[in-house]
């Protein structure tokens, strides 16, 4: 069996390690590219959202490399993603590919069926090995998040533009290669000190802080969001993502398995604007925008795939949040037609806008406009 799964940001590092340590052979799809997108678009319904199209492209490219088993997450709606596993299976079967697909649905409090499904995927393994694999996976997830959180602070202050991004690529490759928990820890720690060692400018006002909210796949996948996080950082903004994988797993996977869903303090922030779940991350988007405004951020950028219902609901609410709490918000919608030129112009103009707002609020002195 040669197992594969779709890309979503750096997910391939921890999930790849998890499966390998459960004794499975993993065949990763090549990094998402124009070809991936093109294969996905040719073979997907036009009005499906971008995540489905890129997933299909990833699977085709992985099958070309010899993969024969696909693992995909399921869901329970109202976001369409929950049904994408089934649709993707149909599409690939229709194209004549031979493969087995495992769609892992959220356990919703019943862990029995999930364990049975995983058991049939993994086969007989010692509980000790399962625990080690899970711990290694978690070590990588939290390590990558720690590295990312430091990188977004270093990037706007770096003296040589692009150095943080180059260093991160290096560090992440090292974290990926680490085959044990100890080696992972060492790689993460080495990475953290390498990032801290990047020459940074010391003078001038602190960089503006921008929150990145929106749909999880677009937030986490730089190929799809046209590297919005890196670009903003290199324009001089400190970016905080609303979604880090470790937080998400803590809240949703672990919370769901053990049914410890307490009232979420974050979501009560959204209540004056949106009082109930709208699917996907719509409610989180509103809640995080309120949170960033309260924490004194300079702006918020919402990203989503074209036709994303939960985020469209949030988008229609954000202007009110923006007005009442006085925080600039910009929405970027991505599909296969998005071009980096348009995104760059909007990001530069948004950076100008928030810098000029800081001048107006008297936070900083007169400053030059953003330029590249």
């Amino acid at each position: 069996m040669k197992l594969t799964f779709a890309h979503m940001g750096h997910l391939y590092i921890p999930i790849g390690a998890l499966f390998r340590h459960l004794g499975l052979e993993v065949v990763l799809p090549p990094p998402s590219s124009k070809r991936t997108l093109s294969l996905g678009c040719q073979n997907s319904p036009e009005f499906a959202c971008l995540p489905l199209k890129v997933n299909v492209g990833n699977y085709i490219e992985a099958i070309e490399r010899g993969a024969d088993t696909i693992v995909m997450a399921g869901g329970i709606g109202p976001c369409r993603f929950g049904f994408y596993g089934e649709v993707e299976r149909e599409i690939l079967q229709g194209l004549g590919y031979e493969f087995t697909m495992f769609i892992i649905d959220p356990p919703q409090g019943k862990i029995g069926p999930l364990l049975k499904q995983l058991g049939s995927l993994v086969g007989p393994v010692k509980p000790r090995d399962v625990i080690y694999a899970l711990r290694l996976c978690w070590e990588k997830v939290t390590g990558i998040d720690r590295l990312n959180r430091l990188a977004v602070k270093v990037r706007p202050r770096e003296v040589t533009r692009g150095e943080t991004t180059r260093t991160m690529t290096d560090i992440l490759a090292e974290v990926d290669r680490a085959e044990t928990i100890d080696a992972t820890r060492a790689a993460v720690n080495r990475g953290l000190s390498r990032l801290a060692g990047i020459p940074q400018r010391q003078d001038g006002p602190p960089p503006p802080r921008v929150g990145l909210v929106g749909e999880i796949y677009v937030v986490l996948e730089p190929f799809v969001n046209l590297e919005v996080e890196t670009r903003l950082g290199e324009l001089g903004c400190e970016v905080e993502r609303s979604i880090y994988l470790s937080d998400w797993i803590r809240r949703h996977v672990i919370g769901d398995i053990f049914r410890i869903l307490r009232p979420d303090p974050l979501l009560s922030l959204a209540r004056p604007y949106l009082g109930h779940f709208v699917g996907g991350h719509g409610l989180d988007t509103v809640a995080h925008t309120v949170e960033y405004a309260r924490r004194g951020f300079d702006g918020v950028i919402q990203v989503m795939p074209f036709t994303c219902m939960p985020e469209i609901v949030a988008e229609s609410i954000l202007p009110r949040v923006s007005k009442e709490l006085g925080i600039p918000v910009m929405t970027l919608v991505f599909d296969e037609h998005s071009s980096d030129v348009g995104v760059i112009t909007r990001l530069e103009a948004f950076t100008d806008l928030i810098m000029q707002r800081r001048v107006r609020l008297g936070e900083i002195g007169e400053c030059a406009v953003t330029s590249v």
Partner: protein
Amino acid sequence: MDRLPVAGIDVGSLSAEAVIMRGDEVLGYSILPTGADSRGAAEKALAVALENAHMTAGDLAFIVATGYGRISVPFANKRVTEITCHAKGAHFLFPKTRTVIDIGGQDSKVIQIDESGRVVDFAMNDKCAAGTGRFLEVMARALEVDLEAMGDLSKKSRKHLVISSMCTVFAESEVVSLIARGEAKEDIISALHESVAERVSSLAQRVGVLHQVTMTGGVAKNEGVVRSLGQKLGMPMNIPPEPQIVGALGAAIISRELADGAGR
């Protein structure tokens, strides 16, 4: 203080403009088609503007490039987005401007600015030619009239027609069927202006329209669109004498600020 001349260059999708300034005075400008070579167009636009100002490139203290082609102007000292530049340019020409509506060759944008010309909010059309100059250009071709003549022709319109498609391609089919039905060109053109105004005013509502409104970009030369848009917004708009150079003018003003800063 004896100020040095500076330049702003705006390389748009359809036309490239350059403005040479010293202090508050515009010494020369140019408007040329961009064509397929944006770098060449930028160089040529600057050369023509310099010629009009009776200067050479060596006289310039600073150059700022803007517009979609700003990255292909290697001789510029800085590159700034067209949103910031249009805000600066409109504020310079009409200091009471609070809303800038720019309808260019292939995008339209609405910018809200404060009393100092700083951008407060903005909205741009998304990946579609609806409500842009290109929309009118395609329709002018279908109707076999000159783009520049459309504004005048629409004044003769007597009958109210509606073009319901926002999409350029579908609207063109609508135009073709209106022609086939024997409708007058003037009436069709008037309906097209309404369509552009409709699209742009809905973009403007996203940002909010504050008095005074200044319109920039090539489409501001079209009286028909200006009239329709003014009616939809419920207020008159400032129209600069040369609406196409406002982006380049803004870039020149930023040049001036940066040159001053550099000389401190």
